[in-house]
């Protein structure tokens, strides 16, 4: 058996989960520099599902496809450390300002170039937008079936897959044929840790842009160790209709952004002293809020 060809869609995101006080600047705008850039959590769940299939079916390859600025090569390396076979960084200024639909278009065109994929596996949603839209929008662009909210691959035999989905109010098990797009829920198993050997092998995996910055001789390096080449695809490497790219290709526009200004209520500030707590509980009882 030849194994499966799997592409994992992953995104580098600002870590919005543990936003501290320094996340806001004095003028009330977001201090992006204070937020570390991380591998989107549910995309790691997706990677784990792909790696499990690879463990079970020899010959399977797992590639990471990500779109973002140059530093997003970090998450391809992170994927390599955990067992992915390679990755492609889709990066170009022409993609800047893309909404979910323009993003899906660019990713869809890159997937068309990759071709003959058995499974495209992505996280359900990214924590910076929480839209859960790119997976299904990519599927539609490629006229492929999608199965969203997947928690477990229950069975995979030749071109037939059985998947368990975790829905708002229940679970559903579905059976369908490959190829398809799968989006994975955060309730699926966590991604395995980095593998020390893979870390040693791939820590020097870089994009050409990164190596140029470091003044390294990448032609010799890539000739000797082709696995260390993280390919960068720009808009010239994929077939695109410019009108569907970036800000101008995005049907949704941000009309305005408001910083959150808190309307202060008339709050009673009380201490944790017994007398204060008791008088509060008495007030709540008197107003029939409790009791």
């Amino acid at each position: 058996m030849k194994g499966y060809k799997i592409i994992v869609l992953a995104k580098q995101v600002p870590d919005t989960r543990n936003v501290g006080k320094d996340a806001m600047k004095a003028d009330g705008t977001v201090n992006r520099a204070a937020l570390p850039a991380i591998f989107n959590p549910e995309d790691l769940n997706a990677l784990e599902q792909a790696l499990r299939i690879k463990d079970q079916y020899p010959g399977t390859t797992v590639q990471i496809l990500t779109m973002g600025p140059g530093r997003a090569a970090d998450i391809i390396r992170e994927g390599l450390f955990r067992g992915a076979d390679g990755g492609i960084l889709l990066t170009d200024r022409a993609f800047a300002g893309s909404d979910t639909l323009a993003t899906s278009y660019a990713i869809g065109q890159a997937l068309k170039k990759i071709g003959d994929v058995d499974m495209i596996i992505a996280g359900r949603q990214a924590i910076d937008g929480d839209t859960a839209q790119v997976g299904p929008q990519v599927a539609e662009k490629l006229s492929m079936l999608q199965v969203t909210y997947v928690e477990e691959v229950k069975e995979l035999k030749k071109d037939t897959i059985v998947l368990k989905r975790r829905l708002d109010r229940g679970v559903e098990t579905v059976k369908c044929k490959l190829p398809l797009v799968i989006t994975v829920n955060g309730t699926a198993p966590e991604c395995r840790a980095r593998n020390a050997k893979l870390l040693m092998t791939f820590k020097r995996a870089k994009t050409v842009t990164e190596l140029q910055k470091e003044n390294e001789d990448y032609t010799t390096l890539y000739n000797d160790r082709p696995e260390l080449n993280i390919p960068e695809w720009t808009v010239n490497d994929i077939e695109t209709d410019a009108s569907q790219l970036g800000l101008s290709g995005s049907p949704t526009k941000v009309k305005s952004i408001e910083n959150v200004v808190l309307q202060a209520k008339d709050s009673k500030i009380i201490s944790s002293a017994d007398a204060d707590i008791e008088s509060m509980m008495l007030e709540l009882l008197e107003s029939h809020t409790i009791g």
Partner: protein
Amino acid sequence: MNNIFVYCEIEDGQVAEVSLELLTKGRSLANELKCKLEAIAIGHKLDGVEKQVMPYGVDTLYLADDKRLYPYQTLPHTSIVVKLFEEQKPQIAFMGASSIGRDLGPRVSSALHSGLTADCTSLLIGDHYDKKADKKYENLLYQIRPAFGGNIIATIINPDCRPQMATVREGVMKKEILDPKYKGKVVNLDVSKYVSDSDFVVEIIERHMEKSKLNIKGAPIIVAGGYGVGSKENFRLLNELAEVLGGEVGASRAAVDAGYVEHERQIGQTGLTVRPKLYIACGISGQIQHRAGMEQSAQIIAINTDPEAPINSIADYVITGDIADIIPKMIKYYKKNTK
């Protein structure tokens, strides 16, 4: 043409709450825009749907009834909605931000190349002037949602593409009957013209839907914990207080992500929206996404070690201190004064 459409989710012949909430919102926007409110229900044995949705002011209800169309499946439902939208050209379309709406919505938007905004917390009609193109747009849908860690509120518009699509979570919009006798027209779609056999490629082997055991939305008192609670063990204190007061335990997303409490209890933009009589926020800083789900509570108590926590500004009582010290005192003085 140019009307407002709501995709109605059906489970066991019942129209989902979120769909009725969206019909209510759709009706008021349709009045403002002087257009019609239309609904689409896709499933099997849809006889009772008309009675359920008409009171919300639906002018046209489209029904696609076929035994293969229930339960929901991505491809056939997408095909029907896409074709119907191509024929009817709505200006606005709403879906629930549920596991169905979030599966279907992006698919439809991708097929029609129309913009979709997820998890809106407010929907308004307004104008827009595009300086670059010197073009004026009237009566656009403002899709308003918190973004980027909740530090900002973004207003999103779709100036040129139709329909303008948005999803909204259950409980965010109010559900209100317009007129129990309201009568719109019912159009039964010829399903065979909207789907093809190749749409039915998924076999549903097993399906367990349960009514949520928790009733957080209906609870008069909610004791909610955030990241500041610190551990799963500390959440027990919240359970105790909730039990004594006859309430439920809720949580912020940070507490859910940290594994202190199960996801079903999450309150906020991407969780539940609640309006209890009393909301006790323990160790919750009060990001806008969390506040979006609870700020309409009648009374709010904020317990935090940080006197500057944003939640304090919307609280009726602000207590600065440690929950391990304060919660037992609340229990003690509640018990003492109710005996």
